[in-house]
């Protein structure tokens, strides 16, 4: 604590050695290795398999929805374990009801999140019903969509007209 600057000096030494090690090795290798570039060599390496299509595709948003819903239960488990380990201490201290009320509050808040996802159709994988009900349906899962449909979807999203006040586009907001 007294000579903290000196400790930072140690860190600096490690940084310098680390950088020198990595970039030195790269530099050394670039001096030694032969330079032979071909079409096959410049291709994207994908675990030895031939690559299929572009990696710039849009994933279906529902993957993230499911991940978020999973997070609700994940967090619940992660926080319930520590409580379970000390609940006997609270019971012996005569505060069992307090601990119980606290954890029930916590679970109820998480359940509201789950109910929210359920109510607005984030758990339905097959037929997502647009919340507005009217107008266009969103394109079906982009992962299984054909190339033409993909292009169409991309075109549609870039060519979406923007109005001055934005009131017209707001109707398709959800």
């Amino acid at each position: 604590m007294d000579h903290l600057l000196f400790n930072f000096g140690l860190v600096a030494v490690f940084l310098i050695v680390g950088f020198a090690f990595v970039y030195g090795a790269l530099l050394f290798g670039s001096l030694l290795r032969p330079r032979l570039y071909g079409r096959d060599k410049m291709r994207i390496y994908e675990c030895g398999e031939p690559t299929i299509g572009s990696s710039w595709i849009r994933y279906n948003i529902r993957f993230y929805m499911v991940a978020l819903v999973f997070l609700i239960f994940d967090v619940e488990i992660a926080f319930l374990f520590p409580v379970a380990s000390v609940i006997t201490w609270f019971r012996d201290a005569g505060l069992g009801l307090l601990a119980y009320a606290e954890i029930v509050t916590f679970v109820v808040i998480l359940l509201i999140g789950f109910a929210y996802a359920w109510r607005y159709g984030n758990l339905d994988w097959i037929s997502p019903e647009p919340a507005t009900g009217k107008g266009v349906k969103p394109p079906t899962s982009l992962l299984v969509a054909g190339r033409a449909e993909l292009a169409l979807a991309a075109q549609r999203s870039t060519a979406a007209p923007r109005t001055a006040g934005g009131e017209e586009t707001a109707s398709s907001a959800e």
Partner: protein
Amino acid sequence: MPAPVLLGELRLILPELILCGGALFVLVYDMFQRRERSQRCGVLALLIVGLAAWDGIRLWMVPGVWAAAPAQTAIFWGMLSADPLWAFFRLLFLAAAGAVILMSVFSHELWRTRAGEYYALLLIATASASFAAAACNFVMLVLAVETLSLSAYVLAGYLKGERPAAEASLKYLLFGSVASGVMLYGLSLLYGLTGSLDLASLDRIGPENYPVFIPVLALVLVGLGFKTGAAPFHFWAPDVYQGAPTPVTAFLATVSKGAGFAALIRVVSPHFDAGSLAPYGMRTVDVFATPTDLSSLFWLLAVLSMIVGNFAALRQRDIKRLLAYSSIAHAGYLFVPFTAANPSGLSAVLFYIIVYFLATIGVFAGVVMIHNRTGTFEIGRWTGLFHRSPVIVVGLGVMLWSLIGLPPTAGFVGKWKLFFAPVEAAAAGPLPLFHYSVVFVALLTSVVSLYYYIGILKVMCFSGTDDRALRFRSGPLERACILALALPLILIQLQWQPLTDATLRALGQPVRSASAEVAR
């Protein structure tokens, strides 16, 4: 046995509990509503904020709650500080949130969206802003600021179908996460220096660590500078302010910015004795008195914000972008007393925050009203509004007048107090040039701001009537709202002593007598 103590302490955070519980209730309520009735959530949210404010007023009025010494105001094992400063900011944030909710209810931008989650997020953001004003532990500070930020990211992009909204949300998220990442890095280094997460532990840093300490505090300032929208960290502001729905913009310009300043005051205010932040060559035992110290950082933030904000605003044609730059400039004005670091400067900051909240909320309310009718944020198309609705334009004029800081409004008193703090320090301290320079820049840029604020009024009053403006006619409720926000600005100018007393009380400073204040 900590638990019974904890139950008693829950009483002190009742307004926040009401807000958080209310947010959940709004969310559940909206689940069982048909889509057409979703807007009722706004009224519900307004009731919840009113309830919280009622309890907030009680916590502000009851003197016994914070009669104890500062060390005893810490609740929840030193996480929050239940003192008047918190009660002050809580009431301020609740009032602003209430106004924002009222704006949202009437804003045409939000009519077609589902309202439940919007108001739930707004309530949670308000509660976390209040917690940020109370945090006296770095973990609590980060938690509160992050909850506020995360809600704000979603709110900024609430108009899902619109590209500017998506841009605003993404930009805000990226800038915000980098800023809070830098702040967290600074805090981790701070923890390495002191071995404690208490804000009070800053006192324990020895002189041998100053060379590390100041850069570390600069890292922490990055996060808070982002929240307050100060100049080197302001790049998100124009796009986010423009893309977000107008009520959300008002929320960002007031509550979010105010939370940043509240957290900043928490961090530095214990060191605001006369001269203890003073720069250059005042080597005392105090942590802030080093050659390259915190005052110089604040000087830089203030000067940069004022210059960038005011000069960039000159070229804006979109009212929301203009107000974004104006809010950057006002962050700069609010940083001016931080360079002086004297107690009177701190009360000036609180005073000006009230005035700024009133004027900004009022301007945004006017913007919502005008946009509802004309459908445009372009200032150039607001021609001739004065002939259609003089009340709104006059009300808007008072608020803009106050933002400039011209005499018949509260903005003048506020700015006078702000800029007087460095003058006071210059008279007492060894560094007149340092203090006078920031005041000089502040006055000069205030003159610059005159141009673009008056420009708005000029378009509305002296240009010919546009056909869009023909559709404009304000309702009685709108006129009442604008006047209710404009009148206090005039009244504060006539009698500002009660407000000064409130700020002094919030800071725990002795309340001066009225005659002494007038004599100054």
